[in-house]
């Protein structure tokens, strides 16, 4: 990550020691470095939570297995879910937003660089707090225990009576703290996009990545706060004797569910919308065409942002809401599938008539399209309330959300890493290793998560550390576990690729993919100041205009 320093003859420049480099990184307020810190942090937790998943899958390979105790298993799935959502998903997407948004809008940095750094370190502290519970909490089963209440932490299981000790408090505090970090970053992204675009870049000329991160940040402001509020209430219950969720005092367990899912549902859109952003940048470049229907893509995303705030109780179809409530949430849930489907069609329309190049970023993007189609359709099934009375709380749901989160978010993140790694480091990732990574991961993914729908249909509930034999679940669980290990091998290949290419990768140059947005005008990696002089743009694809001065985009938009 060296800056492009110019050597001035006759001037002695001291070599930087590793301590100085470390200090620079720890005290940085540069959006690019903070972006890299977020991404590295998230990749670390991807591996940690991935190991947790592997242990879960070993335990579930056979019925009545004894690989881990029920107590450990329950902590594992709690930590796996919490880590993946809050300390892998959110940071990696904020990391990319941090790195790319200023570059793509022609700005020098984010609007509030110090707030940016503060938000990162708050999020980092959150992750540390969650894992400190392994040492510090004094759970029911002895000293030092991770939370075991599930990542959704339903009341009254989280009350002091049912979760003594401090493991649940570590869960609460970790998320409370990182929630403040998320809100800080979201405010920063919004202010940057609205106030720091380069001249000529009207909102209608912004790259879709900027638009989608704007919508995502707006959603963070509105959706993360309910979780923050609910967690404050939980702490008041646990420590000040409050009764928010205390059913013995007339409190309501259902209220926690409402508050949690008012956060929880928009949260999953917060996780997927930046991946839509990646696809909207990658697919056009590798199809050699502009995005099909830019205005509708923006409108559809804004629509998703709003409608997704009205669907939350589809996570609560079994709690006994009346038929009108169930019908309402059914229609809103199905409705939010419409703008999402439209986006898939627009990406299809982008590829249609193009000249598709099957480089690794595009492979992951195409995988995303197939998988998100399936995930969206299983989502429609789950959104149909009576069907959900059978499917809810079963492995069908686990399969669905892993389809969206792994088949969607993780594939999208891999695509983004292969696409922007050259810009960030100045070197290309190895294509051969990339293709091995893609195929192995896809095969493992489908083996695991395609099959996982079936035990759900056959009555297997979730969150169980073991299961009864003879219900038709045995062989399936074994194969699902095998698939998990295949994915693990693929991820190892990926990590190896990241490291080897950093030292030995082919030099990238400014614009290795022949792309069209502003970040490809800078050197790879960009200098600390991004642009020597402020860019001025006249269309959505400034580099297309430069490369094709006879046929600029502006006249078609």
């Amino acid at each position, binding site marked *: 990550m060296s800056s492009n320093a110019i050597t001035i003859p006759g001037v002695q420049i001291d070599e930087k020691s590793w301590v100085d480099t470390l200090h620079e990184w720890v005290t940085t307020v540069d959006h690019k470095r903070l972006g890299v810190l977020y991404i590295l942090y998230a990749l670390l937790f991807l591996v940690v939570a991935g190991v947790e998943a592997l242990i879960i899958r070993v335990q579930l390979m056979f019925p009545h297995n004894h690989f881990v105790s*029920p*107590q450990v298993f329950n902590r594992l799935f709690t930590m796996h879910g919490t880590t993946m959502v809050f300390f892998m998903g959110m940071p990696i997407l904020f990391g990319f937003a941090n790195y790319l948004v200023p570059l793509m809008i022609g700005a020098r940095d984010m609007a509030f660089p110090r707030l940016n750094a503060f938000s990162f370190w708050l999020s980092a502290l959150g992750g540390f707090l969650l894992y400190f519970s392994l040492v510090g909490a004094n759970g029911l089963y002895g000293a030092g225990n991770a939370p075991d209440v599930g990542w959704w932490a*339903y009341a*009254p*299981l989280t009350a002091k009576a049912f979760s003594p000790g401090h493991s649940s408090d570590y869960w609460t505090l970790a998320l409370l703290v990182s929630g403040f970090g998320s809100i800080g970053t979201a405010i920063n992204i919004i202010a940057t996009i609205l106030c720091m675009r380069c001249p000529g870049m009207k909102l209608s000329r912004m790259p879709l990545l900027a638009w989608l991160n704007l919508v995502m940040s707006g959603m963070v402001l509105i959706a993360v706060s309910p979780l923050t509020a609910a967690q404050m209430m939980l702490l008041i219950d646990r420590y000040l004797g409050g009764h928010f969720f205390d059913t*013995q005092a007339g*409190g*309501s*367990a259902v209220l926690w569910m409402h508050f949690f899912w008012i956060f929880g549902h928009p949260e999953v859109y917060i996780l997927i919308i930046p991946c839509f952003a990646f696809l909207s940048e990658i697919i056009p470049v590798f*199809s*050699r065409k502009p995005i*099909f229907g*830019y205005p509708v893509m923006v409108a559809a995303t804004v629509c998703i942002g709003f409608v997704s705030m009205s669907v939350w109780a589809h996570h609560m179809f*079994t709690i*006994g809401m*009346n038929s009108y409530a169930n*019908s309402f949430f059914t229609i809103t849930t199905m*409705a939010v*599938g419409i703008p999402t*489907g439209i986006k*898939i*069609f627009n990406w*299809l*329309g982008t*590829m*249609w*008539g*193009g*000249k*598709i190049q099957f480089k690794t970023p595009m492979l992951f993007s195409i995988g995303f*399209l197939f998988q998100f*189609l399936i995930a969206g*359709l299983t989502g429609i099934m789950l959104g*149909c*309330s*009576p069907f959900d*009375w*059978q499917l809810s*709380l079963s492995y069908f749901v686990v399969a669905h959300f892993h389809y969206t989160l792994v088949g969607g978010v993780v594939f999208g993140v891999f695509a983004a890493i292969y696409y922007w790694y050259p810009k960030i480091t100045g070197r290309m990732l190895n294509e051969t290793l990339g293709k091995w990574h893609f195929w192995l991961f896809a095969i493992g993914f*489908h083996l695991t998560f*395609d*099959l996982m729908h*079936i035990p759900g*249909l*056959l*009555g297997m*509930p*979730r*969150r*169980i*550390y*073991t299961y*009864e034999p*003879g*219900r*038709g*679940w045995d*062989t399936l669980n074994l*194969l699902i576990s095998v698939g998990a290990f295949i994915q693990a091998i693929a991820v190892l290949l990926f990590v190896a690729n990241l490291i080897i290419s950093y030292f030995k990768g082919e030099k990238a140059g400014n614009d290795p993919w022949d792309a069209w947005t502003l970040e490809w005008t800078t050197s790879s990696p960009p200098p600390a100041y991004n642009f020597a002089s402020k860019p001025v743009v006249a269309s959505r694809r400034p580099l297309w205009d430069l490369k094709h001065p006879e046929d600029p*985009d502006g006249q078609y938009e």
Partner: protein
Amino acid sequence: MMRQIKSSNFLTAGKLLLLAFLLTASAVASEPGNGTNIFTPASTPARMVTNLSVFVLVITGIIFVVVFTLLVYSVIKFRGRAGDTGREPPQVYGSTQIELAWTIIPILIVVVLFLATARVIHAVQDAPEPTGANEVTVIGHQYWWEFRYPKFGVVTANELHIPVSDPANPTPTFLTLLSADTDHSFWVPELAGKTDLIPNHPNRMWMDPQRTGIFLGQCAQYCGVQHAKMLLRISVDSPDDFAAWVHGQQQIAVQDASGAAGRRVFESNACMNCHAVEGTPANGRFGPDLTHLMSRVTIASGAAKNTPENLRLWIQDPNAIKPGSLMPAMKLSDSDLDAVVSYMETLR
């Protein structure tokens, strides 16, 4: 050349995956009777849900085939070829007609799906209760089920008996769902969709099983350490069998002299604090009612078969069968243990 090979690799891999999937699915489907398949309903609410589900599956299946085909086609037809560098394809920015079409069609599909769904929601949730319906109150505990039959004055645990319902003259069972501690969920897939048991939030559900037999299920809402072993076993009986069962449950505990020593152990240790045996001083409500323990096929909410060996092991150390269960190990001596087990064996 390389690109062509890559895309045909893609196709071959896709075909292999599909084949593997179908083979596995068929192998699985032929595994011996599981009894928890949501597509083999035996009761009206489950059947309504299954029929709707098939409708939804067909529609989403059609959507999948159409879009999947288009995706595969575009990936093959529009792949770049070797001599392409430098020449860009026609730059198309959008098309209002196409975008309108693929907005309107999904809206119509959603409207159709919603109308079909709303009908079933109403039919299941707002079904009127006929006067002859059987009433059961279900109380969820960490990690067992309490069943009360208010009309019959019966209290039992973990294994539910309900009468079969003749479609011509339905005798459904209506369940009131309560919880003594955390959230649980009552799920017996072949009889009905699941409904949660939430403290301070009573719920209602109903089922009218149309064939006799045993139906299996388990708790579906994470309720703590032993959520996995909070199993359900429903015995759907013919009207005569059901009446006989109720009659048996209504009796006080059998007074069998061979259990006298064990009864003394039971009543002088802390057992009475949690368990009830009708007709004796024991009337604890924290644990399952033991009055007719021997009428049950399993113990510990399905975690083990109801045999003397398992019973002995359970009383000696519940954690050996269900680690984390809330029953403490009673630390009885061997002779006391044997006596208590003999006493339990008399509770028919």
